[in-house]
Every structure is written in structure tokens, then in C-alpha cells.
């Protein structure tokens, strides 16, 4: 059966559609052919697939072939069954007949003969030629057709249809098509069944020795081909898939050693999309096919079907795995394949797959995820071909052109070298090429990285090529060359490229190569290890033999061409990856493109691509990778004069992990920054150094300030620079946490700052801030012309450069400014009055409220009536001490003067310009400031007579003095506190007098009552009275009471009394009267024992030495006393006569009687006109009294002593109770001359009116 392979192929090529046989019984075909063929291909057909499920197929192609055609004749039976797929799927029998007899006799037997073949699907088309107007003919045709139907159609199946040529027969074509489809469907089903049975039979035998894959293949592919003809592509694809599986299962099953294939010229170009590349007959091997070609053939068939199914994405994804798995197969057979055949094949396979699928693919047809996947596979394909291409290029010596980047290293260094049976040798006439390669090797200078970064280049080779190639050669030769070579391998160890060796090794290599390249031992290269250049040349020649594709050949022909292809592949991969999910792959390849751009001088593009790569690595924190790319970007930026970008890159480089660069390199970065900063920048750019310079407050609680206070802020700045760096300025902003609207204020550090590497503490002076809580905002600074900013906070500890992920953003406030509050309190320490006119200590309590008063200045301004004794020193002491000292003060008044021993907490201060400065020790404690003051009072205090009310209130107001205090404090005296204190001063005593007795001899006993006004005990040592004119002391003394009474101690707020006996003196001469004081003055010499903390105290300020020692320091208090001369000559006496004993009643008339009596003769100096009569007046409260009669009038009274008269007035009391009776006054007479009885006002009782009983008398 395998012999039919060739025939099968030709049949397949000639026939790709369904055949419908036309049995033209009545020579009608020429008539109807046009109409039949017009309707091809069938727009829509319903066929059954392999699982007997209906499938709708479109545009089903078919061809009508007459049974008399040569193509349908002369076939052997076996052929027919084997290639059954090409047999007609339906037979259309075209008949016409106009006569019933003719039908019966001729047509019917003939038709029976035709349709007796059961295997055929047939149906009869009756063509009626009858014109529509010819009823006869029409009728006859109908009759014949009816007969036909009866004879050939069954209930099960309609097998007839009728075509009216003359008349319109729209239904016919539908009818025909449905019948055709039915036939095709049936035929297809039957044939599928047939093939399946056959295949099953064969596949059951597949583990037997008789198994012949070719037979199986023909059957299987026939079935597949039939499906394809019927447009059942899915089924066809499945057949191919099964075929592939079966092939893979059986290909290496038996122990038979088969050729792999792939050794023909041109085999390196993949044929995985071209099923017809090689005829199958050429690849037959015994009973099977050569793997190399056949697997590609199968894939090509699958791909074709997938394209027909419009699934190019599946082609590419299947293609990728096919390439990978096929590559493994190639690797297995590498020793029989030409040198690098595998690589060449993969490159062409990938590229052709990409081309074809891309041309079949249009965007947006499939779901987005499938589309993404498609692009991903395309990217993979590009990437794969790129790797293989690089490998080839490396082998021929272009390795120095390949960027030693991580991506290239990852793909190349883990990819094993080709393993040919023998490493290619140098062709005999290639010495010039070897020289050229050597020159190239020598000329290749490793790209020097910017900033002098030295890195060990990443490997591009799995092992040293030199060694590998020689080993492969050595394995053939008998000699122990490998050992010999190995002894010298130290020279080239570590790198396959001499160009990348250290300079010293390189020199050595040069000398070595020079000597070795002499023609003398050139020929004997078999016996000695090949040199690198020779390996390159050998590989080059071998490749040229292997690679047949002109494109690839060209790409490997020169470095320039290589670069073009390399770029194309890289771009292809990157672009496709960018459209897929695999962004990282794309971006990384962008970096490779950038490297080429850079090499070509297209720095702009290179920078853009590098930026993308850097952003990717930086964004995800892959610092190691970033450190590889960032210097490249920086270099581009420098070349492009992109200062901002360059600076940013330098800063980023500096902020990478310390371990990634050497200190020297980091210093180079810094010097670049500094150099640029101090050069003339056209457009000064702000630079973000957040990752490099971080800052934080000092650990511990935030700085707390009171409103309005300036402060000093300590900020820790971590510098990531490897060296010291000088900042022209540095400032920090503070952000209020509670108030976002508030504009942030920057605090500047004065002068230039030098940042050391690592931790620096910066001191910033802080102007007064508004109340609130503040966090650090932005650090800005200037290096030369360059302004930089840093937004990032650092934790306390070494600056962490993982800035992209900061778990703990410190929102710890660094500064708290409190709301305005009272910071200090000033109060008077005395609780009671101080002594008036005496120098007194006025205590002022200075109480800081959680605030230091360091350097505070108190300004004192006294109000009117108060004076500071400036000659004296102001004292300050701790408040607690003051209370302790009370006891001491009690014992001795001068204790405080001697009390300097209290050390620091007591100090004497002097007042300058009304200001004093508080000592430092007092800055945080409550202290008392003692100020010597003296209240000034005009005039003497006046005593009062004992009976008169309470005049002391008056003196309280008099004794008030004010003192205005102003405290300036705070760090820079920014805080002030003002208060006006009221201090109460008083005299030690309030004096009241009264005459206690009047003796017959005219001596008056004057009682002076002393009320103590102070909260201190007073001791009276002496008292004397300077009398006013008209009074004299009764005894001829100095007016002092008996001195043995003294001293009298007067307790606080108690009273004491002193009696003075005085008498009226003789009339005094006018002059004398003038010299005498108008008032009497009481002098009291007293001492006071009081505590200044409580109130009045001994004025200790009196200069002691001035007085004699035996005289104790006594104070003198003087008070004026009003003494009135007593009434001397009452010339008239008024007496109120007793009232009737029955008492007074309201409403009852009563007569008030006063007796008026002249006590002495009327003297001439009184009023002359009314000598003998007296003017009287009755005063009464009109509410209580009604007065009948004259209230005022004259009554006669003789001027003689003893004359008397009674004045009677009729009154009616109006109110009950004790009321004041009407009073008789004598307006014309001086009160002093009237003696009244009773002397003062008195009350009388008035009864309520008597009850009226007239209505109450019992009957």
C-alpha cells in the first residue's frame, strides 16, 4: 500500500473538493449545466461530522462531472476504496421524457440499471421542456414525472425532483440542493465509517512487527483530507493530531535505527508551514517517514487547517511548543546534523511562524486575553530566535557586540554549546580570515562604563568556548591535547572573550596568539588546540555551509548586518511583549534596544528606553538590576545634556544599596552632582533627593513651646552621600497637623551646613509659631546652584533606602505649640493692710506656671500715693522659705536682713529704671519679691467722736494704692504679663474720742480709744496729746498719761483706751491761737510686731545707726482729734412737760407743753430786736402728728433771769407706737445757748385708738 503514496499525493493535489457525478441520460447536461454550476459553491450546507453531529459548513465547493468523464472511469477497485474520498459523493440522474410509453419501455429500465448500485447516492432530476402555454405537453410532463416519482421515490426518501426549463421553478434549486446535501451527507457518513473501520484495524496492529506507518498514514490522511474537502476542518485537524500522536508513539518504538533526516541542503530552513516543501515520497524510510521532515509536514498540515479555521493564535502557540519540542529532537540528533543546524532551523522556524501568523491575524477578532496570549507567544518566538541568533553570532566572533546584560546572560549562559560530532576545522586557505578575526578580537574594546564602574561582565557562554571547541576536537584526536590545553587555560579562564580579560592577561594573549599564528604550525591545527580566532573562522565557514537561507547568511556576514537583525528581533520581541501581559519581558528588551541605540549614537532613544527599564526596576525595588542599567541611563542623559535627568540619576545611584557600588564609584556619583551643582546651569532644576537625604526629629517627645515662643529645633538629617557635602543653605518646612489650610513655613538653617555621611544633627532656630502640632514637611537645600528637596522621613536608625515601601510613615509631631495660656502669675503676698507712710515690704509673688522665667525682667510702676524706696534693695526669696521664716521674723525684726545665709534662694536685687531682672534660680519656682514701698498720705488721719457711725470705710478707700507690674519673659522676652496690684495701706490705729466725764471743777476726762487696724500686735510705748487752743492739760504735765501704764500691747483688731484729763484753758490771745494747731493732735509712739507676709510689719528699712542705741526703733503715729469747747452759757432752758398719765391714744387730742425759762440775764451782745420775745417753732413728723395751732410764733419772755413761759400746742397723734414727739426749737437762739431736757431725742408711746363699742353692746 505504501506504493500508493505517490499516487495519493498527486490525487490530493489534484482534487480538493467534492465531486458530484452527473448521469446524463437524456443529453440534457449542456442545457442545464449553467444553472447547476451557477449555484456553486454551496452557500450553506449541513453535514455530519465524525461524531455524527450536524455541522454547518459554508461555501462548500463541489464540481459536477459527467459520468462519462475520463476522470471517473477506469479506476481499479482497490484504488477506489483506498482513495474513496475522491469518488463522487452524489449522482444526479438527468432525465426527460414526454411520453409515458417511452418512459415505461426505455427510460425506466435504464434508470433501474443506473440506480441499482447501492453504494451510490443518487437522485433523479426530471427536466421538463414543455413550454408553459402548451397545456398538453405540460400535462404529459406532469404525468411522466408522477410516474417517475411512483417508481423511484419511496416513503423514506424522495429521490425525484422536477426542473421546468421553460417555466420559472424557484423551488427546484432549493429542492435540488437539499437532495444533494442529503446525498453528500449520506455518502460522507458511509465513507467516514469505512475509513474509521480501516484505521481501527490498522491501529490495532501498531505494536506488531507488520505495522506499516505509511499505510496507516494514507488512510488517516485520506480521512483527514476528506474532512477537509467537506470543510469539516475541525475533524480534519483532529485526524492530523491523532496522526501526530501515533507517529510520535511509534517512530522510535522499534529498535530500528532510522535516519532522522535534515541533512539535505536547505533543511536548515524550517518547513513547518509549508507542507509541500518536500514530497512525502522522498522522506519515506522503510515503512515510515523520516522524523525531521515528517513532523514538520504534520505541523504544516495542522497549521493550514488552523488558518482555515481562522485561529492563527493557535498556530503560533502550537508552533512555539512544536519548535521547543522539535528542538529537543534536533538536539538528540545533533551529532548527525550539520554544525548549528539546530540553531539555524529554530531561527527560521520562529521567523516564518511569526510572519505567517501575523499576516493571518487581525486585531480585535478574539477575546482580549487570547489576543494578549497571542502577542506573548509572538514575543516568545522573537525572543527565542533572538537567542539563537545571538548564539550563532557569538560563535563567529561577534560576541563583543552582544551586550552582557542580565537578559542576554540569562538566556545564553544557560544554553549549552552546540554539540556537533566534531567541532569544525579551519579550512586550509583561511589564514587571512583568521588574521582578520584576531585583529577584530584585539580591536574590540570593552565598553567602559560611566563613572568608572567596574563590574565583572556577565557570562554569555555556558563554558569557555575555547575549551569547549578544543575538547570537542580533542575527543576525536588520539593525543592528550585537552590536558595540554588545560595547563594553560588559566590565561583565558573566566571568559570566552579575550577582549574582556584583564589588561595583563590580554597582553599575554596577544603574544601568544602572535607566535601561534605563524604559518608554520598553522596547517597542523588538528593536533594542537585551536585558538579563538581560528574557532571563529571555522565556525563561520561551517555555518555558511549549514545555513542556506540568504537572509540569515546576510545577517551573519558582518557586524553591521548582525546588528540590524539583532535590533529587528529585539524590537519584535519587545513590541509583542508590550502588547501581552508580560510587560517586564518587554521593558527589559527595551533596555537591549537602548544599548544598540546608544552604540549607534541615538542617545535620545536610548535614554527613553533606559528610563523605562529603570522605572520598572526602581518601581519594584530590584536594586541589583537597577544598578546595572542606571549608569547607562545616566551616561545618555549626560551626553544629551539633560541635567535634571542626569542629576536625578546620580542621586538615584547614590541612594541604591550601599553594597551595590564601591565607595569609589559612589564618590564619583557625588562628585558629578557637586560638579554640576557648582557649574553654570542654564536652568537650575529642583532635585528630589528624598531617597538619599532623609530626616527626622530627634527621638523623644516633641519640642513643646508656648504660644509666641521661639525655639530651637534639632533635626537629624541622614545623608546618603559617601563624602561630606557642603550645603549653601538648608531649610525645613513644618506642617501643622491640625490645620491643612495653613501655609507651610520654612525654617532656615543659618549659614552653610556640611553634611557628613550618615547621621547629622542640624540645629534650626524656630521663630514663634502658631499654636498647634507640627510635623516635619519638606527639607530643601542648596548645593551650589542646585536646589534639592527631600520629602521622606527616616526612621530613627540608619537611613533606609527602600523608599518605595515605607511601612511606618512617621507622623510623629516634632513640635507642639500650645494655645495661649497664662504662663505666670503675679500676686501680692500680703493679705492685710500695710502701714501707711512707713516704708513697708510689699511682697509680690511671682509664680511661673510650668514655664521658665529665665532672664525675666519685671518692670514696676507705682501708682499715685506710692513710692518705691529706691535707696533700698529689693529682695527675692523662694516662697516656701517665706512661710518658714515667719517664726524667725517674729523673734527678731532684722532677721531678714541678716538672712543672706539662705544662700541662693535669697537674693538682693537692685532696681534700675524701674526694672529688675529675676535671678535664674527663681526661674522655675514660685518666688516672692519684696519691694520696699512707702505709701504717702496727705495730712494727718482724723479721729472721730465715739458716737458717730463707722468712718473707717472712708479710710479703706484712702488706703488703697496701686502698683503696675509688667513682666517680660520667655526665651527672647517675647512674653509679657501685666498686672496692676492693689495694695491696702492703713494707719496703725483708728482713733476715736469721747468725753467720759465732766468734773465740777471744769476738768474733762477725755477718753481716746485706739482701734488697732493691722494684723500685727502693736505696742504703745508712749502717747501724748498736743492740745489745740482753748484746751490745756489739767495737770501741769506734758500731757502724758502716767507712764507706768506703758507699754500697752494692742493685739490685732482689738482696742485700747487712754484717758487724758484736760480742762478748758483761758481765752487765748489771737496770735497764740494762730501758732497753735487748729486741731489737737494725738501722738503715739509705738512699735509693731508683724510679719511682712501677713501685712503690716516693722519697717525695717529705717536706718538704724542714726538713732541712739538705747532708743528702740519706735514709730510715731499722729492723729488729729477734734475737740470742741463745751457749751458754756445756756441762757435758755427748754423743758418738755410730762404728758398726761393716761397716755396718748391715736386720734385723741393732747396738749404738748414746753416750759421755756431764761437762765441768765440777756446780754447785750445778742440780738437786740427780740430781747423780750423768743421765736419758737414746732417740728413734728406730719405722718405721726397733726398739729393744731400755730407751729411757729413769738412768745414773750422777759430778759430777766428766771422769767419763764409755757408753750402749749394741741396735737393729735396719728400713728400708734413709739414715736418721736413734736419738738420745740428756737431758731433765733444758738444751740449752744439752749439747755434741753431731755437733752436728746426721746420717744413716747401712743396707744392705738380706743375700740368703738357702740355696735357691740349686747342687747
Amino acid at each position, binding site marked *: 500500500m505504501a506504493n500508493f503514496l505517490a499516487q495519493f499525493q498527486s490525487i490530493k493535489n489534484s482534487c480538493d473538493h467534492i465531486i458530484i457525478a452527473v448521469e446524463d441520460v437524456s443529453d440534457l447536461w449542456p442545457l442545464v449545466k449553467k444553472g447547476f454550476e451557477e449555484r456553486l459553491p454551496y452557500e450553506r450546507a449541513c453535514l455530519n461530522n465524525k461524531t455524527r453531529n450536524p455541522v454547518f459548513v459554508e461555501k462548500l465547493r463541489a464540481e459536477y462531472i459527467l459520468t462519462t468523464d475520463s476522470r471517473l472511469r477506469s479506476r481499479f477497485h482497490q484504488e477506489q476504496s483506498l482513495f474513496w474520498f475522491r469518488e463522487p459523493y452524489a449522482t444526479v440522474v438527468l432525465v426527460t421524457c414526454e411520453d409515458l410509453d417511452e418512459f415505461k419501455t426505455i427510460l425506466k429500465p435504464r434508470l433501474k440499471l443506473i440506480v441499482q448500485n447501492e453504494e451510490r447516492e443518487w437522485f433523479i432530476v426530471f427536466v421538463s421542456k414543455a413550454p408553459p402555454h402548451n397545456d398538453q405537453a405540460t400535462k404529459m410532463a406532469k404525468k411522466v414525472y408522477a410516474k417517475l416519482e411512483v417508481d423511484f421515490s419511496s416513503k423514506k426518501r424522495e429521490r425525484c425532483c422536477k426542473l421546468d426549463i421553460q417555466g420559472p421553478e424557484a423551488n427546484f434549486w432549493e429542492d435540488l440542493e437539499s437532495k444533494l446535501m442529503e446525498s453528500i451527507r449520506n455518502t460522507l457518513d458511509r465513507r467516514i465509517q469505512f475509513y474509521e473501520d480501516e484505521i481501527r484495524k490498522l491501529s490495532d496492529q501498531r505494536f506488531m512487527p507488520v505495522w506499516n506507518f505509511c499505510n496507516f498514514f494514507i488512510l488517516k490522511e485520506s480521512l483527514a483530507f476528506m474532512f477537509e474537502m467537506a470543510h469539516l476542518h475541525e475533524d480534519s485537524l483532529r485526524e492530523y493530531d491523532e496522526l501526530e500522536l501515533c507517529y510520535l508513539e511509534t517512530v522510535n518504538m522499534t529498535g530500528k535505527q532510522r535516519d532522522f533526516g535534515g541533512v539535505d541542503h536547505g533543511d536548515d530552513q524550517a518547513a513547518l508551514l509549508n507542507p509541500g516543501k518536500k514530497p512525502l515520497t522522498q522522506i519515506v524510510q522503510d515503512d515510515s517517514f523520516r522524523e525531521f521532515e515528517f513532523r514538520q509536514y504534520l505541523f504544516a498540515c495542522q497549521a493550514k487547517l488552523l488558518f482555515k479555521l481562522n485561529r492563527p493564535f493557535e498556530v503560533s502557540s502550537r508552533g512555539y511548543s512544536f519548535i*521547543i519540542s522539535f*528542538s*529537543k529532537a534536533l538536539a538528540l540528533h545533533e551529532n548527525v546534523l550539520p554544525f548549528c543546524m539546530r540553531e539555524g532551523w529554530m531561527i527560521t522556524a520562529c521567523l516564518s511562524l511569526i510572519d505567517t501568523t501575523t499576516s493571518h491575524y487581525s486585531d480585535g477578532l478574539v477575546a482580549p*486575553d487570547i489576543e494578549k496570549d497571542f502577542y*506573548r507567544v509572538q514575543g516568545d518566538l522573537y525572543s527565542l530566535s533572538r537567542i539563537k541568533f545571538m548564539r550563532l553570532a557569538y560563535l563567529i566572533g561577534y560576541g563583543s557586540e552582544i551586550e552582557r546584560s*542580565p*537578559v542576554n*546572560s*540569562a*538566556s545564553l*549562559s*544557560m*544554553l*549549552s554549546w552546540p554539540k556537533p560530532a566534531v567541532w569544525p576545522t579551519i579550512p586550509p586557505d583561511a589564514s587571512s580570515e583568521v588574521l582578520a578575526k584576531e585583529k577584530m578580537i584585539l580591536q574590540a574594546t570593552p565598553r567602559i562604563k560611566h563613572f568608572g564602574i567596574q563590574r*565583572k561582565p*556577565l*557570562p554569555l557562554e555556558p563554558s569557555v568556548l575555547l575549551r569547549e571547541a578544543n575538547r570537542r576536537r580533542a575527543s576525536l584526536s588520539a593525543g592528550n591535547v585537552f590536558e595540554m590545553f588545560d595547563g594553560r587555560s588559566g590565561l583565558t579562564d573566566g571568559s570566552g572573550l579575550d577582549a574582556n580579560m584583564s589588561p595583563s592577561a590580554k597582553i599575554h594573549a596577544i603574544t601568544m596568539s602572535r607566535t601561534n599564528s605563524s604559518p608554520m604550525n598553522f596547517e597542523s591545527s588538528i593536533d594542537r588546540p585551536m585558538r579563538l580566532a581560528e574557532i571563529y573562522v571555522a565556525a563561520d565557514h561551517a555555518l555558511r555551509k549549514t545555513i542556506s537561507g540568504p537572509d540569515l547568511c546576510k545577517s551573519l556576514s558582518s557586524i553591521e548586518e548582525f546588528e540590524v537583525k539583532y535590533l529587528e528581533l529585539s524590537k519584535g520581541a519587545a513590541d509583542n511583549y508590550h502588547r501581552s*501581559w*508580560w*510587560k*517586564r*519581558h518587554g521593558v*527589559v528588551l527595551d533596555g537591549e534596544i537602548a544599548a544598540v541605540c546608544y552604540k549607534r549614537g541615538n542617545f535620545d532613544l536610548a535614554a527613553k528606553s533606559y528610563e523605562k527599564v529603570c522605572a520598572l*526596576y526602581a518601581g*519594584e*525595588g*530590584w536594586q*541589583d*538590576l537597577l544598578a*546595572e542599567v542606571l549608569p547607562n541611563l545616566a551616561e545618555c542623559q549626560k551626553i544629551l545634556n539633560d541635567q535634571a535627568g542626569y542629576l536625578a540619576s546620580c542621586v538615584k545611584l547614590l541612594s541604591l544599596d550601599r553594597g551595590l557600588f564601591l565607595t569609589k564609584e559612589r564618590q564619583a556619583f557625588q562628585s558629578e552632582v557637586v560638579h554640576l551643582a557648582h557649574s553654570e546651569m542654564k536652568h537650575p532644576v529642583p532635585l528630589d533627593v528624598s531617597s538619599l537625604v532623609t530626616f527626622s526629629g530627634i527621638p523623644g517627645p516633641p519640642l513643646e513651646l508656648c504660644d509666641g515662643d521661639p525655639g530651637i529645633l534639632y533635626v537629624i538629617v541622614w545623608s546618603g552621600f559617601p563624602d561630606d557635602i557642603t550645603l549653601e543653605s538648608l531649610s525645613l518646612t513644618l506642617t501643622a497637623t491640625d490645620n491643612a489650610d495653613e501655609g507651610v513655613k520654612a525654617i532656615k538653617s543659618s549659614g552653610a551646613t556640611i553634611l557628613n555621611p550618615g547621621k547629622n544633627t542640624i540645629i534650626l532656630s524656630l521663630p514663634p509659631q502658631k499654636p498647634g502640632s507640627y510635623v516635619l514637611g519638606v527639607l530643601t537645600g542648596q548645593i551650589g546652584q542646585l536646589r534639592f528637596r527631600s520629602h521622606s522621613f527616616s526612621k530613627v536608625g540608619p537611613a*533606609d533606602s*527602600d523608599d*518605595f*515601601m515605607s*511601612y511606618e510613615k512617621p507622623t510623629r509631631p516634632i513640635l507642639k505649640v500650645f494655645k495661649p495660656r497664662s504662663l505666670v502669675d503675679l500676686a501680692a503676698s500680703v493679705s492685710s493692710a500695710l502701714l501707711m507712710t512707713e516704708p513697708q515690704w510689699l511682697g509680690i509673688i511671682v509664680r511661673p506656671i510650668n514655664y521658665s522665667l529665665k532672664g525675666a525682667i519685671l518692670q514696676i510702676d507705682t501708682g499715685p500715693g506710692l513710692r518705691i524706696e529706691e535707696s533700698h534693695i529689693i529682695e527675692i526669696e523662694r516662697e516656701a522659705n517665706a512661710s518658714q521664716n515667719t517664726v524667725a521674723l517674729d523673734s527678731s525684726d532684722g532677721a531678714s536682713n541678716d538672712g543672706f545665709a539662705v544662700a541662693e534662694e535669697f537674693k538682693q536685687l537692685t532696681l534700675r529704671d524701674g526694672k529688675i531682672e529675676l535671678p535664674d534660680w527663681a526661674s522655675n519656682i514660685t518666688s516672692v519679691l519684696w519691694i520696699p514701698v512707702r505709701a504717702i498720705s496727705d495730712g494727718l488721719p482724723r479721729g472721730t467722736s465715739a458716737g458717730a457711725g463707722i468712718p473707717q470705710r472712708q479710710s479703706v478707700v484712702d488706703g488703697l494704692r496701686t502698683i503696675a507690674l509688667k513682666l517680660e519673659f520667655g526665651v527672647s522676652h517675647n512674653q509679657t504679663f501685666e498686672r496692676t496690684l492693689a495694695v491696702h495701706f492703713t494707719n496703725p490705729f483708728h482713733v476715736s474720742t469721747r468725753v467720759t466725764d465732766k468734773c465740777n471743777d471744769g476738768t474733762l476726762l477725755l477718753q481716746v480709744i485706739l482701734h488697732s487696724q493691722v494684723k500685727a500686735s502693736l505696742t504703745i510705748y508712749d502717747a501724748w496729746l498736743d492740745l489745740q487752743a482753748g484746751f490745756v492739760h489739767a495737770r501741769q504735765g506734758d500731757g502724758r498719761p502716767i507712764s507706768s501704764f506703758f507699754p500697752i500691747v494692742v493685739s490685732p483688731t482689738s482696742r485700747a483706751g487712754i484717758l487724758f484729763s484736760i480742762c478748758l484753758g483761758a481765752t487765748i490771745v489771737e496770735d497764740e491761737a494762730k501758732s497753735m494747731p487748729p486741731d489737737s493732735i494725738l501722738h503715739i509712739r509705738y512699735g509693731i510686731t508683724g510679719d511682712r507676709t501677713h501685712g503690716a510689719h516693722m519697717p525695717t528699712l529705717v536706718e538704724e545707726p542714726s538713732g541712739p542705741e538705747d532708743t528702740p526703733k519706735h514709730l510715731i503715729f499722729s492723729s488729729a482729734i477734734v475737740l470742741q469747747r463745751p457749751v458754756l452759757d445756756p441762757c435758755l432752758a427748754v423743758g418738755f412737760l410730762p404728758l398726761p398719765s393716761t397716755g396718748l391714744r391715736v386720734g385723741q387730742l393732747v396738749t404738748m407743753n414746753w416750759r421755756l425759762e431764761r437762765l441768765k440775764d440777756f446780754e447785750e451782745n445778742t440780738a437786740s430786736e427780740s430781747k423780750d420775745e423768743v421765736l419758737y417753732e414746732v417740728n413734728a413728723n406730719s405722718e405721726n402728728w397733726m398739729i393744731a395751732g400755730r407751729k411757729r410764733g413769738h412768745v414773750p419772755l422777759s430778759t430777766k433771769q428766771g422769767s419763764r413761759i409755757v408753750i402749749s400746742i394741741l396735737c393729735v397723734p396719728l400713728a400708734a407706737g413709739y414715736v418721736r414727739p413734736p419738738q420745740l426749737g428756737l431758731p433765733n437762739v444758738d444751740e449752744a445757748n439752749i439747755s434741753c431736757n431731755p437733752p436728746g431725742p426721746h420717744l413716747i408711746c401712743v396707744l392705738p385708738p380706743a375700740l368703738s363699742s357702740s355696735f357691740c353692746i349686747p342687747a
Partner: protein
Amino acid sequence: MIVCVAVVGHQNNPLYIQSFTEADDALKLHHIVHCSLDVVDERVNNPKKSGPMLNETFLGLLYPTENYKVYGYLTNTKVKFILVTTDLDVRDADVRNFFGRFHAAYVDAVSNPFHVPGKKITSRTFAERVSNIVKSFGLSSAG
């Protein structure tokens, strides 16, 4: 042979990466691990593809190349473990076993109160443990 193991944080930042090659070429392994995140992302973002694997931490083979294999493992906290091996013939069970032990080691390492979540793992104990796990990779099943 396992050439590299890595722990990658949930923001795709490297937390721990250790190569086990003799040559000084860790950078290429960084690259491989970093690029393999593409596949992890793809799987995580396309639940359709993962299908029944939805709740599985083991992501399986991330991408096969001719020369090495990359396996992935995703914890509940979206921390990824990546394994790069040059063994082309690796049994899934071995890899699962490896990741299980690796995960346990990781959990122990990050449970250290002095470890800052999201920062690189610097614990020496962890490194030792990982290298032990790596050394014993495949032995259990083989022996």
C-alpha cells in the same frame, strides 16, 4: 540543580534572593526571577486560565525554556516564591515538597518580631535553612 530561589513580596519587590551557582552571575538570576513575575501576574490576573488551580498556592511551572525551568508558588499574602532550576527533568511532587518546606521556613523567618514586614529577609538562620532545603531537593524522593 537549583540555581536560584527567591522570595518576592506582594508588591513584586524582592525580599530574598539567593543563587546557588558558583559563577558570579547572580544578576542574570535576578533577571529570571523578575521576569517570571510576569507569568505570576498573568496567572493571578487571569483566573480563567488558572481554573481549578484557583485556590492552589503552587503555581507550577511558570515558564519552560530550553535551558532552565522556573517554578512559582503564591502564598495567601501574595508573597511569591520562585525556584529556578537547571534540571530539565523535575518531578512536580519534588517541587511541591520543596515549596512546602520553603514556605514553612519563610513563615518562621517573618514571624521573627524583629523582622519588618515588607523588608528584605536578612536572617542568617533563614538562609541556612533555605540552603539546606535546596541541598536536599529531590533527595527524599530519589532515596
